[in-house]
């Protein structure tokens, strides 16, 4: 993250600032999501009150979990392809780091300005499935292999609705630049009324719903958790991982959840901007990340709410839902958006 001041720094100094910033951007939302939703909300919704016991209001649970995993023995099975096995969790975590590159946090608070922002984000976010496939294949375990293959099939099916839902926003904004999409939403008007700008959730509601469903599937959160279905595949592609390497997959999962929510918040909820605030103020470089974090948590609340509410799909239902419902619906959505854009 750079501020007005940091723009005058040399490139290597900016890079150090950005490196610190991206570590915060990856770990902070992930930690918040795990603590707030996975520990607190789920335990209340499902009457599993264990996570509320460690420390006052369960606030030490996160530390306890990390401490526990740090001390666990690191096991690699005999038949495993050791090099691929050790690199797999790193690939999963690294894909999250590069997804955050294009997310804007304020008027001057950005990591890199890539003109094809959203396109780049959608491309690199699917890198994590390579890590999952590596993990599944290298473990030399039948459950892992099936979990990895299922994850690949699921990503292929839901990548398309995700991309096509984002296309609706690109048509409306007329740009692929994430900062440009934020600007388009704050200066936009709904039928001549510009009081709150035009957050695309209002005009792209169908797109937002498709994006949320596809996002849930890409994150392999229940009801789309066939790759790690406990009752069928033990832990899917993570079966042979133990100790800290297992925790890396876990961090990767929720950091990716944060990254996808950040993209969804930028595309549909107006990103770091908020109506009524002086948006070109330097203060927005500090307030922007906070606003974005709140929007990330709003979207993650919906995802976790679906997660605890619905039972798991069957593998064939999952594929049919994507190909026969979501993809035709999103094609209709972009056609309708384009027609309306040209007519008005």
């Amino acid at each position, binding site marked *: 993250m750079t501020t007005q001041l940091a723009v005058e720094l040399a490139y290597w100094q900016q890079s150090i600032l950005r490196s610190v910033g991206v570590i915060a951007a990856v770990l902070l939302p992930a930690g918040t999501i795990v603590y707030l939703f996975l520990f607190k909300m789920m335990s209340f919704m499902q009457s599993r009150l264990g996570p509320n016991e460690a420390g006052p209001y369960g606030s030490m649970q996160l530390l306890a979990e990390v401490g526990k995993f740090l001390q666990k023995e690191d096991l690699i*099975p005999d038949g495993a392809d050791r090099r691929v096995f050790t690199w797999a969790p790193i690939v999963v975590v*690294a894909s999250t780091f590069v997804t955050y590159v294009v997310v804007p946090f304020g008027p001057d608070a950005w990591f890199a300005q*890539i003109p094809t922002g959203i396109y780049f984000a959608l491309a690199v976010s699917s890198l994590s499935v390579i890590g999952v496939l590596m993990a599944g294949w290298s473990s030399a375990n039948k459950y892992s292999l099936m979990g990895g293959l299922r994850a690949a*099939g699921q990503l292929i099916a839901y990548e398309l609705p995700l991309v096509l839902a984002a296309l609706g926003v690109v*048509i409306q904004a007329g740009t692929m630049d994430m900062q440009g999409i934020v600007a388009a939403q704050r200066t936009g008007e709904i039928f001549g009324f510009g009081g709150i700008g035009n957050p695309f959730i209002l005009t792209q509601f169908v797109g937002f719903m498709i994006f949320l469903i596809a996002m849930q599937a890409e994150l392999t959160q229940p009801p789309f958790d066939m790759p790690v279905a406990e009752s069928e595949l033990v832990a899917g592609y993570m079966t042979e991982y133990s*100790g800290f390497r297992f925790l890396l997959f876990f961090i990767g999962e929720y950091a990716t959840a944060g990254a996808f929510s950040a993209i969804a918040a930028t595309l549909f909820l107006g990103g770091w901007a908020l109506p009524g605030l002086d948006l070109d103020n330097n203060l927005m470089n500090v307030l922007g990340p906070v606003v974005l974090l709140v929007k990330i948590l709003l979207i993650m609340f919906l995802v976790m709410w679906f997660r605890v509410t619905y039972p798991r799909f069957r593998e064939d239902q999952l594929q*049919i839902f994507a*190909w026969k419902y979501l993809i035709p619906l999103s094609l209709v959505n*972009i056609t309708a958006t384009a027609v309306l854009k*040209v007519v008005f």
Partner: protein
Amino acid sequence: MSDFLRSYLTVGIFLGVAVVLVSALLGLSSLLRPSKPTPQKSIVYESGVDPVGTGWAQSQIRYYIFALLFVVFDVEAVFIFPWATRLEAYGLFGLIEMGIFIFILFLSLVYAWRKGVLRWV
């Protein structure tokens, strides 16, 4: 170096940061964790019984046709993205052109559907 290349250099730096962070955490873990390997621990997990055959068992990949369809639609997305950013400039002409393009792709989905490819075999 131009700003354009520098933004992609940032991508490379972030990849490096990820690898360094993960290595540091694994290093910290290796200082704290025990290491007492036994032959039993390094057997792959197969619900508690001795594993049968090798781990790289043959399995039916049911969705290779879906993968082919995916390529068709992904290439479509590559074409639609640049068009979407310039829609205002193209106006009605661009709309009709892309309408035909999307219609043909939609037909391909309907064709696959009718052929029974979208069925779980």
